[in-house]
């Protein structure tokens, strides 16, 4: 099966798909990088609370140019704003929200997800890589639901949905759903259950570029 049969969606479209899975009233943490895009697609008429690990609930979008306040930044260290009704708190409280199961959803990027929900996202394991973990391990196991947002394959065409992760783990059996540019997959006791494949792709087409076994949905 060639890569030519693939009809991937864009990163922004993945973000839109994820936004549809976030209910009003949810407390949500969006990880650094690609997951940040999800904020752009949350419905404005619904109250959804964004948490930032450095101590913010009710985080708003980036300020207009010239209005940056460097005491008000997100986990990626970029300036943000505070929505009315927002709050500030210290690190131990912030991580109690994350580790204590108070966040409904976190969305994280990943290098690999395994069929039992193991997540590898923080370290390639290369000898000269400088390891950095931040709050990823806390989020992965602490949120009620961990969503992963990533490309289905690496730039070299290697599957990121795998039977067993080969990169160092961020968390064990912690992922609930995986959103890629090819489809949406739920982690079940049997493995990756296909919830949706985009642009009319067949399960055979997507399976051909997926190392782990995919299970046909309804």
């Amino acid at each position, binding site marked *: 099966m060639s890569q030519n049969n693939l009809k991937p969606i864009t990163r922004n479209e993945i973000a839109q798909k994820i936004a549809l899975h976030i209910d009003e009233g949810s407390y949500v943490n969006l990880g650094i990088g690609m997951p940040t895009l999800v904020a752009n697609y949350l419905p404005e008429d619904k109250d959804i609370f964004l948490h930032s690990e450095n101590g913010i609930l009710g985080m708003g979008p980036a300020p207009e140019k010239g209005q940056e306040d460097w005491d008000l930044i997100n986990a990626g*260290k970029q300036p943000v704003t*505070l929505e009315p009704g927002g709050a*500030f708190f*210290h690190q131990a409280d912030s991580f109690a929200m994350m580790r204590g199961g108070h966040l409904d959803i976190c969305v994280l990027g990943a290098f690999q997800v395994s069929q039992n929900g193991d997540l590898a996202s923080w370290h390639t394991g290369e000898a000269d890589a400088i*390891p950095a973990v931040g709050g990823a391990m806390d989020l992965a196991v*602490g949120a009620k639901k961990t969503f992963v947002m990533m490309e289905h394959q690496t730039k070299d065409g290697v599957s990121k949905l795998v039977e067993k992760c080969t990169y160092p783990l961020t968390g064990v059996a912690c992922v609930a759903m995986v959103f890629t540019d090819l489809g949406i997959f739920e982690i079940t006791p049997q493995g990756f259950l296909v919830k949706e494949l985009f642009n009319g792709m067949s399960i055979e087409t997507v399976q051909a570029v997926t190392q782990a076994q995919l299970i046909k949905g309804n």
Partner: protein
Amino acid sequence: MINKIVDRMEDAFSGLKDGATIMVGGFGGSGIPHDLIDCLVNQDAKDLVIITNNAGSGETGIAALLKARRVRKIVCSYPRMADSHHFETLYRSKQIELELVPQGNLAERIRAQGAGLGGFFTQTAYGTLLAQGKETRLINGKNYVFETPLAADFALIRAQRADRFGNLVYRKAARNFGPVMAMAATTTIAQVSEVVEIGQIDPETVVTPGIFVKHVALVRGEA
């Protein structure tokens, strides 16, 4: 009369020795006590152990301390940032030791020390490289890892406003590690941009009560 506001910042560092452990507040560029770090660079102490979230970027803050070769070991969650070249150089040439700690463990280990706890069990990092060799326990059907408290001789933090008793109020997300580090160190020094009279800080809004603060250094001309 108790007055924790120091006349000269260096007075707050008296008792600092080689090999001391120092917590430094801040997340990315927010809440970094730049003037206190500069003052620390000007002291002679070396072989320091620094507990902080990031390993500094550019030439200022933690990066200045690394550049001055005063740090033996850094305990942090995310050393890799844009332009963290001083850390990278020292790390790659094995001239600095790194203890990488998940950010929630970093905050909670600091808080545990401040609260007099001997440690805690957490689900974070179970089954990962960062839990290797650590005690684990099955609690209510879930796997937990035992983490020990982190103590320090000094904590350098930044707040917005203080009174002479050392009560502190922070500014926005610059609060980050300040309140927990203040609890965990033998000597906590707060850099503030405003000092007000006793009673001027509404007791309902005090974030760090003065009991956790030894010295306050007023640095004017900041946000």
